[in-house]
C-alpha cells in the first residue's frame, strides 16, 4: 500500500489554498503588478511578449513563476512516482481551447486565479468575471453530462512528457543569458517592458522559488480552480472548492495586513469596468477550461507530471496571447480591445461546436 497523500485530504487542499493566497499577495508586495501576484493567463501573455510573439510593450517578461509551476510539479511527480508520460487525447482541440481560453481571460484581464486575487484585493469587477466563469463552467458540465469527451490518452516515452518542462528550462536559460538591462527594452533575443505590468516583478529567485513551491504543492493536492466549481456543480463535491475559497480568504487577509486591499470598481489595477465584457470574457474562458479539463494552473501542473495534452493546451494559451495582442482582442485598463467582442463571439461559437461534436464513440 502506498503512503497516504496528505495533500489530497480536506485539510491538505485547504493548506495549499492558504499557501497560494498568502504567496500571491506577498509576490505583489515584492514587486508583481496589482492584484496579479499570480496570474497564469497574464504571465503566459507576458512570456509571449518577452519572446516577441506579440509586441505590446507593456506586457513583456519571462515570468519565473510559470517556469516554477511546471518544474515544481515535475519534481513532486518524480519524488512520489507519479510521473506518467501520456498524450494523444485530441491535442489539436486542446490547442484551440487553450488559445480561446487565453483570449477570453485577456478580455476580462485575468485567469480564474487572478479573478480570485482581484476579488481579494477589493476589485468589484472581479465579481462579474467570477459569475461569468461559473456560467462558462456550468455550460461545460452540461456537455460532460451528455457524454462529452476528448478521448483517451496513451502512454508514451518519458521524453515526450519532458517537452514542456524542457521548454520552461529553455525560458529560464534565456532569462539568465539575457537579463534585463536598465532602461533597455531589448536584451539579446528577449523583449522587456520599461513601463506597465510587464515592468513590475518580484526578484527572479523569489518568483522562481514561489513558483516551485506552488507547483510542488499543487501537484500533490491536485489544486484546480475550474475543478473547484465544476465538481460542486456536477457532484455537489466541495473538496477542491475549499482550496479555492482558502486562497481567496488568505489573499484577502494578507492584503489587509500589508495594505493592498482597496475596495471599489473604478481605478483598479490592470482592470476595466465594462461589466458585460468582464462577464462574457470569463464565460468563454470558463467553458474552454471546463472542456479541456482544468484551469490554466492545473494545465501547467499536469504538464509537469507528463501530460503532453496539457502541454499542448499551454502552447495554445501562449499562441492565443500572441494573437490577442496582435489582433487587438485583449483588453486594457481603458476597456476592451478593438475586436474583443468579435473574438468572444467566435470563441464561444467554436467552444460550443467542440462541446456538441466531441462525443463518446462506441469504441471509446
Amino acid at each position: 500500500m502506498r503512503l497516504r497523500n496528505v495533500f489530497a485530504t480536506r485539510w491538505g487542499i485547504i493548506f495549499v489554498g492558504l499557501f497560494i493566497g498568502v504567496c500571491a499577495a506577498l509576490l505583489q508586495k515584492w514587486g508583481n503588478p496589482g492584484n496579479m501576484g499570480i496570474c497564469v493567463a497574464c504571465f503566459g501573455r507576458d512570456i509571449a511578449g518577452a519572446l516577441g510573439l506579440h509586441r505590446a510593450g507593456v506586457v513583456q517578461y519571462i515570468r519565473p513563476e510559470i517556469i516554477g509551476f511546471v518544474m515544481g510539479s515535475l519534481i513532486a511527480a518524480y519524488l512520489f512516482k507519479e510521473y506518467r508520460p501520456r498524450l494523444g487525447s485530441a491535442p489539436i482541440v486542446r490547442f484551440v481551447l487553450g488559445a480561446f481560453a487565453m483570449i477570453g481571460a485577456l478580455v476580462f484581464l485575468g485567469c480564474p486565479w487572478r479573478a480570485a486575487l482581484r476579488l481579494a484585493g477589493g476589485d468589484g469587477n472581479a465579481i462579474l468575471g467570477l459569475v461569468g466563469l461559473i456560467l462558462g463552467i456550468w455550460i461545460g458540465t452540461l456537455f460532460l453530462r451528455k457524454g462529452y469527451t476528448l478521448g483517451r490518452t496513451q502512454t508514451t516515452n518519458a521524453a515526450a512528457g519532458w517537452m514542456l518542462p524542457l521548454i520552461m528550462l529553455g525560458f529560464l536559460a534565456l532569462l539568465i543569458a539575457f537579463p534585463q538591462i536598465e532602461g533597455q527594452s531589448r536584451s539579446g533575443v528577449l523583449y522587456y517592458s520599461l513601463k506597465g505590468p510587464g515592468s513590475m516583478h518580484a526578484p527572479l529567485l523569489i518568483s522562481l522559488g514561489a513558483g516551485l513551491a506552488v507547483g510542488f504543492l499543487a501537484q500533490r493536492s491536485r489544486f484546480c480552480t475550474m475543478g473547484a466549481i465544476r465538481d460542486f456543480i456536477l457532484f455537489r463535491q466541495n473538496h477542491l472548492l475549499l482550496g479555492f475559497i482558502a486562497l481567496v480568504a488568505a489573499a484577502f487577509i494578507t492584503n489587509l495586513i500589508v495594505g493592498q486591499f482597496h475596495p471599489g470598481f473604478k481605478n483598479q489595477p490592470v482592470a476595466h469596468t465594462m461589466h458585460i465584457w468582464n462577464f462574457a470574457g470569463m464565460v468563454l474562458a470558463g467553458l474552454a477550461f471546463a472542456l479541456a479539463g482544468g484551469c490554466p494552473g492545473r494545465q501547467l501542473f499536469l504538464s509537469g507530471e507528463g501530460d503532453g495534452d496539457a502541454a499542448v493546451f499551454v502552447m495554445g494559451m501562449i499562441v492565443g496571447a500572441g494573437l490577442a495582442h496582435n489582433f487587438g482582442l485583449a483588453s486594457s485598463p481603458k476597456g476592451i480591445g478593438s475586436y474583443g467582442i468579435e473574438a468572444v463571439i467566435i470563441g464561444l461559437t467554436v467552444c460550443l461546436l467542440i462541446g456538441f461534436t466531441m462525443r463518446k464513440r462506441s469504441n471509446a
Partner: protein
Amino acid sequence: MRTKIDARGLSCPQPVLMTLNEIKAGRASEIEILVDTDTSQENVSRAATTQGWKVADVIEESDGYQITIRIK
C-alpha cells in the same frame, strides 16, 4: 453483481462521472474501476465514499490502479 469500468486514459472528471453513473444505475453491488493516474484513483475513491460506498481494495498495476468499491 460485479461490474467493471475502464476509465484509463480519460481525464477529469470522466472517471468519476462513469463511476457515479454506474452507482446510480443500481445494478451493481461491487464495481471494479481501472484508472491510470493517482488523481483519478483519489477522485474515484473519494466520490464512492461520498455515495456511501466502501473502497474495498486499491491494487497498483503497471499502468495504473484497479479500484474495487462495494456497497455498504
